[in-house]
């Protein structure tokens, strides 16, 4: 075991996306977490990548549903039920 834990920086970088998305199994989550606690460079990379994702989500989600869209769609469904349509 190295001072940075069982995972090297490369091992950690390879798993960073899955770690950020909580898609690793528990054992790997723990090993990545241990590495990030001990490696300032990887921790900085992790914070940057996580922040890019969070901020892109925040920007992309700034959307309002057009006021009458729900009404139009419900009306369309009603028309779709009519015989012969």
């Amino acid at each position, binding site marked *: 075991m190295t001072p940075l834990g069982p995972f090297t920086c490369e091992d950690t970088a390879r798993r960073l*996306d*899955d770690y950020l*998305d909580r*898609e690793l199994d528990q054992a790997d989550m723990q090993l990545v977490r241990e590495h990030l606690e001990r490696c300032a460079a990887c921790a*900085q*990379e992790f*914070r*940057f*990548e996580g*922040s*890019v*994702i*969070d*901020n*892109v*989500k*925040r*920007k*992309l*989600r*700034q*959307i309002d*549903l*057009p006021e009458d*869209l*729900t009404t*139009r*769609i*419900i009306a*369309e*469904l009603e028309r*779709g039920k009519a015989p012969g349509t």
Partner: protein
Amino acid sequence: MEAAVTIGPPGAPPDVGAAELPESEFQAQLVAALPAAYGYALRLCHHRADAEDLVQEAALLAFRGRGGFESGTNFKAWYFRIVTNCFRGRHRQEQRRPRTVDFDDAQDLDLRAASAANGVPFQGDDPASLLIDRIGTERVADALARLPDEFRVACALYFMEDFAYHEIAEILGVPVGTVRSRLHRGRKMLQKSLWRGAEDAGIVPARAGSPGSEVVG
């Protein structure tokens, strides 16, 4: 995490045969899913009118095929799959999106490394937040719109709705491993596309020569 999705084969409407969702219940679930579906559709189409048409077409197909939805499973994911299939069907006919970024595998660009290499502040409490704020909502949306279709679809599901990989896999009808690779690659492409957009807008220093001349990361 939401319940599993039961969805018919690609190319809605889904299977018929299960107990049909009562009309009032279908309508309630559809109305609840519409804001998210419209947001997703807008990020796929990049044009408001197209996004409205897309969710409307998908709603009608969902209504006609509601027998294929299994009560108690994830309605939103089921409807999103229909939206996705409608988008794919339409998009084959009208390829009108701008595609200005070269996404060659050999030319990945990492925002943090690019910031460091170009004198843009990349240290401090939250440098990514400052950079994305400077890039702005419209250019972030443009950056997503420039991704190749399959990467854009996977990234839109990921960024807009926090679906887990397995949920995205069910919506797209592909294995989880495919979702993982599309998201990982798509996120790299998005960073490159964001940087190019920031360069074009003069937010970060433009590279000497034509776009794409400097490779970072």
